[in-house]
């Protein structure tokens, strides 16, 4: 799956540059599904990088595991979901030293949640690189009930927690690693705009 190109948007909307190898620094890498391909390209750009890398992969149905493992990283782990990988990821962050680079590749949900964890652990924002691959589904927070709805692909969508119909805003919270959804029919209850596919 190729890199996702985003249309211009408001400034809080994150965009994700291609991953670039940072020489000589220890590396922590986290990818889901098609994000694995971005890590493979990164490894091809600087083969020496993998000897210092700790890779955590969430295959989510993709078949890149063996290829990723074959890159020969210092440590390699797979987990079925971000939640399942969180413990290991947190431990890796706790043990990390200043200078460590974090490489994230995959969906915005993964990038957002992992960035939020890393910042909370004290990793400086400028030590984090991310590349978007795969689905453009968004992780949305309902600003009313604060519930998170994963894999949102339409606008508006229905909050999985409180049932309000929410407008998908481009407003992204780095702290939460999620976009913000606001009630779309607050002033005109029941009058809803036509549902559209979210575009990147």
């Amino acid at each position, binding site marked *: 799956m190729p890199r996702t190109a985003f249309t211009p948007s408001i400034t809080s909307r994150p965009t994700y540059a291609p991953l670039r190898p940072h020489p000589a620094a220890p590396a922590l890498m986290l990818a889901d599904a098609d994000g694995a391909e971005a890590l493979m390209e990164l490894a091809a750009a600087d083969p020496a990088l993998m000897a210092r890398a700790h890779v955590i992969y969430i295959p989510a149905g993709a078949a890149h595991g063996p290829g990723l493992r074959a890159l020969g990283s210092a440590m390699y782990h797979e987990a079925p979901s971000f939640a399942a990988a969180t413990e290991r990821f947190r431990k890796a962050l706790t043990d990390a030293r200043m200078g460590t680079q974090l490489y994230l590749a995959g969906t915005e949900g993964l990038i957002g949640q992992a960035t939020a964890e890393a910042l909370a652990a004290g*990793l400086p924002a400028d030590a984090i690189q991310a590349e978007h691959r795969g689905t453009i589904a968004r992780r949305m927070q309902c600003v009313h009930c604060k519930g998170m709805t994963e894999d949102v692909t339409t606008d508006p969508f229905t909050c999985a927690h409180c049932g309000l119909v929410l407008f998908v805003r481009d407003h992204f919270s780095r702290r939460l690693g999620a976009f913000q959804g606001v009630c779309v029919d607050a002033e005109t209850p029941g009058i809803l705009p036509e549902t559209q596919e979210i575009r990147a």
Partner: protein
Amino acid sequence: MNALELRVAAVDPISPLVTRFRFEHPEGATLPPFSGGAHVVVEMPDDGILRRNAYSLISDPLDGRAYEIAVRREDTGRGGSRFMHHRVKAGDMLRVTRPINLFSLDLRARKHVLIGGGIGITPFLAQLAQLTRLQAPFELHYAARTRSEAAGLSLLPDMPQVHVHISDEGNRMDLGAILGHQPLGTHVYTCGPEGLIAAVDDTAARLGWPRGALHSEAFLAPPPGTPFAVTLASGRRIEVGPHESLLEALEAAEVPVDWSCRGGACGRCETRVAACHGRIEHNDHWLTDDEKAAQTKIMPCVSRFAGETLTLDL
């Protein structure tokens, strides 16, 4: 500049080269609090020249009873530190600006690593008080070649977080070891000679530290030099003496120029150059290399000129 009229309450020699000055409000009023790393500019009426030198505050930032500075005597400088050492006595009144901080701690940091050399230890002394009060994790490293060059040594409190490295005694500071093992969220602050700041930057870059976690301050004393003249937009000509800075010469001529650090670091005194036939001796840390090469801007607090004519947009 918004200055306070303060009384010199104490003058304490603390090493052959370094003297501590304590300033209090003449009526005992509380002085404005500051944050660690802040400096004040002291006005020195020195035989017709009004010198103004910036000094980091070394006292506890929340102790409003007094401001303290430490001045190292520079025998080859322009005379500001000699004035402080030889002419200032307890009981004197001096004008001192309100504190300004160009080198504050980033309080979002998880840990603070302070690296100082020579008299570059001064901004850290107030930061130590601040960090201790905040109970924030920190370590301080003070480096010097010999114990006798370690002018700041006697100012340092005896704390387990304070590490002194004297290379002559075989415990040279190992920046790789210091920066190689810091937890995530650590910020590094460096103050001292250029070489020390460059060494910290290089080591940090080699270890993959992001720029945003690195802070440094190098106040430059305005260097003396050969006399020169500048022309103002009005056609007026102003002579700058060998032991005077361009900024001081402009002030003596009552040409208003804004300033804050007087050490080439803050950018406040940036002045446009209308014409330049000759070479501007850029001594500042503010202008980029391209700006310096273009010779269309000058920082009058530290920079000088050699050549035919320099016309300033003033």
